[in-house]
């Protein structure tokens, strides 16, 4: 898709979101949409590393939680406003990504995944033992009384998350259409060959882990205000790791569109299921959808559509 058209589309969506907040009073829509948009960011972030370079991150929870707890820390210490929290969350998580990238740069892909898992456990233990941000008890966060520009805070958070979602997709799009993206693809296809042909694999991998981590932290930063309660179990929840992995895979990992489709599809299904079927069958549905899609469409929805388009052409 041409870049200019996408920019127009993005602006249209943003305006649409804004209009929505003016028209629809039903707050449930915003709470549910926030979660789906959050997953767009997480899935896109995961895919920058996992889909483009092939390095599967298993510790999304760690980066997301870094964003969450940076916000909590800032709220508790200096009462920082949301934009500052977002930037700080991104920076902290990005540094974490840089760190883990550096630590594991010699590891083959699967070892990297295990290392991210280990990292999540270590970080969770550290947070549990840090009383200032609540520790194991968790902490109640009081939302600011007034939301800037909007009648209530949830609509504000919804707009913020829409912006973040579009922003992260933009980052993914830019990477994909640049030399960096081609370098990533080279690493994914055959890292050794890429090294031999002069691709700066180390620098690229570090860039990927940093950007990916940063975006995950950004996704987590507004979480304290969204939920008004934070505890390590929710922040480090396995479902973040699982969903941020499943959504790009279901949608298609080779392009920015895949995570978006996957996030919208899986995210919406989960939100709907929570308030309709609402029982252990929820988990069953997620499991069945995962197996179903991955077995029948291993290249994701994007891959499936591409294949059909190709056959239509032929």
């Amino acid at each position, binding site marked *: 898709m041409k870049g200019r058209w996408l920019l127009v589309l993005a602006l249209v969506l943003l305006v649409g979101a804004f209009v929505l907040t003016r028209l629809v009073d039903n707050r449930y829509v915003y709470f549910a949409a926030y979660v789906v948009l959050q997953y767009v960011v997480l899935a896109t972030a995961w895919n920058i590393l*996992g*889909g483009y370079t*092939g390095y*599967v991150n298993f510790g999304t929870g760690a980066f997301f939680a870094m964003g969450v707890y940076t916000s909590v820390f800032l709220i508790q210490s200096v009462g920082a406003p949301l934009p500052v929290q977002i930037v700080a969350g991104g920076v902290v998580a990005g540094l974490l990504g840089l760190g883990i990238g550096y*630590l*594991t740069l*010699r*590891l*083959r*892909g*699967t*070892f990297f*995944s*295990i*290392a991210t*898992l*280990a*990292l*999540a*456990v*270590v970080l969770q*233990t*550290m947070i*549990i*033992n840090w009383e200032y941000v609540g520790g194991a008890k968790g902490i109640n966060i009081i939302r600011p009384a007034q939301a800037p520009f909007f009648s209530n805070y949830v609509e504000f958070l919804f707009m913020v998350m829409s912006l973040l979602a579009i922003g992260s997709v933009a980052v993914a799009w830019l990477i994909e259409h640049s030399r960096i993206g081609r370098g990533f693809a080279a690493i994914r296809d055959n890292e050794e060959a890429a090294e031999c042909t002069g691709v700066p694999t180390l620098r690229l991998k570090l860039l990927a882990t940093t950007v990916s981590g940063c975006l995950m932290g950004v996704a987590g930063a507004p979480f304290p205000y969204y939920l008004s309660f934070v505890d390590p179990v929710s922040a480090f929840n*396995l479902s973040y790791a*699982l969903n941020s*992995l*499943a959504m*790009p*895979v*279901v949608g298609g*990992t080779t392009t920015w569109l895949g995570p978006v489709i996957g996030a919208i599809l899986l995210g919406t299904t989960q939100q709907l299921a929570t308030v309709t079927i609402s029982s*252990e*069958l929820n*988990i*069953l549905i*997620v*499991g*069945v*959808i*995962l*197996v*179903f899609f*991955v*077995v029948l469409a*291993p290249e994701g929805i994007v891959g499936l559509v591409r294949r059909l388009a190709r056959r239509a052409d032929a």
Partner: protein
Amino acid sequence: MISLDLLLNAVVAGVLLGGFYAAVSLGISVTFGLLDVVNIAHPVFVILGAYTAFTLNSAYAVDPLLAGVVFAPVFFLLGVVVYRIYYTSFESKGESSQAGGLVFFFGILFIVEVALILKFGVDYRMIEASYVGESIHLGPIGIAFRLLVPCVAGLLMTLLLYVFLGKTFYGRAIRGVAQDSLALRLMGADPVKIKTLAFGISIATASVAGALLIMISPVEPSIGRAYIGRAFAITVLGGLGSIGGTLAAAMILGVAESLTSTFSGPSWALAVSFGILLLVLAVRPAGLFGRR
């Protein structure tokens, strides 16, 4: 205050725990270490094993370990079925889509977990066996049967698997299949059959490991998730492809957890274990006994 008594007991407790961890991780060691299949659902099969042992135990007062062994062939078949689906969807295409396989197994994890919830409910289940709660004392060292039996069983399983992989034709075929399937075919073995066999064996170990788990503590369907990290960490720490390495790593992690719990603070026990893993990976990426 580091008294010798306490230290000895902590080490022994760690070793016992390690034997149990080895039992849980053996399946991952085979599938991830030898076949390069990331079966993240393995722990939920362990839980399934715990429940099958529970069923026999509560209905017919069968000893859980015996139940675990009795069900092992059933689990083997289950493993065969799961692997067939996995193979047809992923490996047969030639591309090793790691992420895709992961998602597949996550789906399986959820499906099995829900099946357990639907059948058994979410209440905690425990088993009754005459030796649970008894312990023997060797001087200052106390050993609870509740942990001794799983440890011994874990050691036995490791030994059996080790011998199988080292000395039998099929065992050696499994070792070779990930590395050189062409050579394997030339020797008359079908790589797909061999991999299926290996996967089946790994799920069979889950049946026994589950029986051991429910001996140690109460289970409910979602506790499997806590073991995902440990099992993979142990396999990687030990070195992919090395069964002996898995046992060693399980022991190391068990002892590390035990020592941290006893002397500095149980809060940090898991962090210490994973910290050790990260350190080893940073220094020696292949793990302790890994080949590369």
